[in-house]
């Protein structure tokens, strides 16, 4: 009798220990979610870059040029990739609009870039001899490039590459430092 008491005491002690350890040690179990969470924390995706051209003299019609990849990098490919078509011998003011269209309503990302303009720089690489591009805005020290002036000469075809550099703490007015946030090369035609 005494032995069986002792044995059952021991068994009880062991079972108790197992239970305490099992219950106390486990972290939150998330595996019962069968459906992925909504994409609230998808982070920031740049889906769309739109270039808005207006004739400084107010004669020629406005030009809107867009590159759009609605689901961001990877996944489906871009669905809009316009050509820049500008009238010859015209001076255009150009402003860049960046959107995140994975959210509804779309988020205006150029506002975010403007808020951190001391960390950002747009760089234009232009293959056309008859076109010159100048950044017209500033962060107080260096240019930014959200606004620019495009001086168009005679008819010619080529490309313009627009790169957005993220240069936190390392911005020096040149395109060398930093990481690339955007890089789109537009086919450009002067008509």
């Amino acid at each position, binding site marked *: 009798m005494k032995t069986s008491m002792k044995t059952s005491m021991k068994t009880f002690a062991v079972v108790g220990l*197992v239970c305490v350890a099992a219950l106390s040690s486990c*972290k939150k179990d998330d595996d019962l979610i069968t*459906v992925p969470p909504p994409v609230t*924390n998808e982070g920031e995706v740049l889906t769309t870059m739109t270039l808005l051209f207006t004739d400084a003299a107010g004669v020629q019609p406005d030009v809107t040029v867009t590159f759009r990849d609605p689901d961001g990098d990877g996944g489906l*490919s871009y669905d809009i990739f316009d050509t820049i078509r500008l009238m010859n011998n015209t001076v255009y003011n150009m402003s860049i609009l960046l959107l995140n269209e994975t959210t509804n309503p779309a988020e205006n990302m150029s506002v975010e870039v403007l808020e951190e303009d001391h960390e950002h720089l747009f760089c234009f690489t232009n293959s056309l001899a008859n076109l010159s591009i100048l950044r017209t805005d500033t962060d107080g020290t260096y240019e930014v490039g959200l606004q620019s002036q495009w001086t168009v000469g005679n008819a010619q075809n080529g490309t313009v590459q627009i790169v957005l550099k993220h240069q936190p703490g390392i911005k020096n007015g040149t395109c060398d430092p930093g990481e690339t946030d955007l*890089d789109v090369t537009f086919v450009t035609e002067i008509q």
Partner: protein
Amino acid sequence: MQSFAQFIATLILSILLFSAHAQESCTYQMTGYVIDDHDRSPLSDSKIYLKNSKMEVFADSNGYYVFTGLCAGTYTFYCKHFGCDVVTQTVTISGNTVQNFYPEHHVEFEDVEVVATKLEEEMSLGTRELSDKERNEIKGLSLGDGLTKLNGVTKLSAGNNSSKPVIHGLHSNRILILNNGVRQEGQQWGNEHAPEIDPFIADELAVVKGANSVRYGPDAIGGVILVNPKELRKTPGIGGELNLVGLTNGRQGIVSATLNGNFSKLTPLRWRVQGTLKRGGNVHSPDYFLKNTGSREYNFSYGVGYLKQKYGVDLFYSQFNTDIGIFSAAHFGNLTDLQQAFEAEQPLESANFTYAIDRPRQHIEHELFRTKAYLVTGPRGKLSATYARQYNKRLEYDKDPPLNDSLANLNLPALQFELTTHTGELIWEHSRMKSFNGSVGITGIHQGNTYEGRFFIPNFRKMGAGIFWIENWRSKTKRLEIESGVRFDNIYQRIYMWQGDSIISPAQNFMNVSGTLGAIYKPSDQFVLRSNIGTAWRPPNVNELYSNGLHHGAASIEKGDSTLVTEKALNFSVSAEYTGKKLSVVFDGYYKIINDFIYLKPTLVPTLTIKGAFPTFIFDQVNAHLRGFDLTVNYSITPEFKVISKASILRAFNQTNNNHLVMMPADRFENSLEYTFKDGKKYTNAYVSLAVLSVLKQTRVPANSDFAAPPEGYTLLSFSAGIDLPIKTNAITLGVSVNNLLNTRYRDYMNRFRYFTDEMGRNISVRVTVPFTLFNPSTSHK
């Protein structure tokens, strides 16, 4: 050319060693009895052996043993009997010697079954284990770095904070890590996701080279890594061990302590508590600091067991937590940035020393709870049941917080995975019945993955079940063993992902039969020959089926293929071990045929994104052949002086496209010279060693599969020394190692950060291990 010269050098060395071996003469013998200290009864089957040597003998039924072939000199002998503590005896041999051993035999523990998963007594696949000395030398290193001490095991790394073990060129989902007998389930598909294990838990670190699906289930195509903790304390009392490690590169400090106990009133109840703290800062290449390469780690574990002769239950819990910095200059926006980083002499971002960890960084947690129970069924059988739960959490923070301030203030990871896995196993084993022993069992797994943030792999649920049967036949002379096994598995997998605005949830089912057949033949006591033919398989992983996106760490777009089929391997392996008095040789040869080998194939059309054009890779299946060998030759020139030569050769070929396979380790050779001091009154096991590691340039790579050509080969020098200082029944162990002694500048092909930076420079590690006793009932009673 270099490789050929190296091969010839190794060959000549081997021949020299063989011829020298023929001339030695060590003819002394030591004899004696092994007797129970309590009741003076003979202890048959006791093992008498030399530390760090393969020489061992067993006592006969009268407790009598004969140890032959000893040279003159001083040796430390160990005597081990089941249920007793190991007895240590230092003996000076100058002629034939008589020496008795008196282990203390605790009746209560007689025949208590070993609960921790031990290595099979013999396996037809070569199993290679780290020696005590090697385990001491790797203290403070990660699991992936430490295992490279084993010949044939290399690492795939992403900087200094992430290294994954590679067995014969295979890694990630092609190898299996058994942590405490449980399949380690983390996000192992990721090339930069290192195993979430604290190496200080392990008392035994071993690698089974070759396909081993029959016993362990899917994924074990390349091999199995066994990480086993020490058995729970058998003798009454409380004691432990304190480990202190310091490493100069990254100014790393590590403290790890173990406390184990056994209640004298309730002897079957045993426990252990263990914990590790680790902190390191920016590491240094020979010329510069690497920005943001610090790490922090805090781990703990405990084990409790109530272990009786006929039944027992134990449980184990461990937690692994780490924060690691990702080398800043290895993060880039697009291909132009990558090109720029690659062409730079030095990383584009410079840094000084700091312990601070900044973005980009990762936080990883892994939790394991395991319980195992056993019941002895009849005179020869044992039934055991295991249940384990694992929880893995991985948070990855991008280099830049979101532009939007309110989002940035939340400080959420860009990517988060949570993986919960339940595994169970029910096994019945029988010890030798006539000539057979074996086991039969069923296993089950349930797994759920959820993510938050950026899409990389979808949510999924996976369920699997397996059934296996393995038998081993041994001849009457015990010279020949044949083992054979068969297994059936079924895996069901269902994924949940967004497609546009709706959720799709396709399901897939994978079934497979695997088999193994092997033989072990011992023509003499010095020789063991093994050969094995086995099949292994793995279902395609979710990332291979469904990933679709920009891989930020690799500047490439990866596209999964949901039509991928199961990867199947047929593995031939042959190994030979010779253990002579002066010479020992281990040879492991292999030939693997892997059908439907899944790999990332570059496509010719790059994908155009808003960040520019990216090279695009799709998951494709080909037939692959991997063959090679690992050779270790160990020769004692004198009792003190030893030369160890290792060679590891691998050829991996894509048969379908008639091309090489990408990311396979290059040939490597290591030669070391070791001097062991004779044990003195105040110290034992003192040694110094110098090693030269040569890794050749990987020239066997397919064209257009990589951003840059493989780096040049390199040669590294390293130094190591250790000593044991006996205190009462134990010894304090001291060790010092210097890796990359000459501060050589080099890059390794298997490091994904090779585009951006040189490897770490010189690294000196200093190690102290102090065993201690807090409470000893046998002394306190007196």
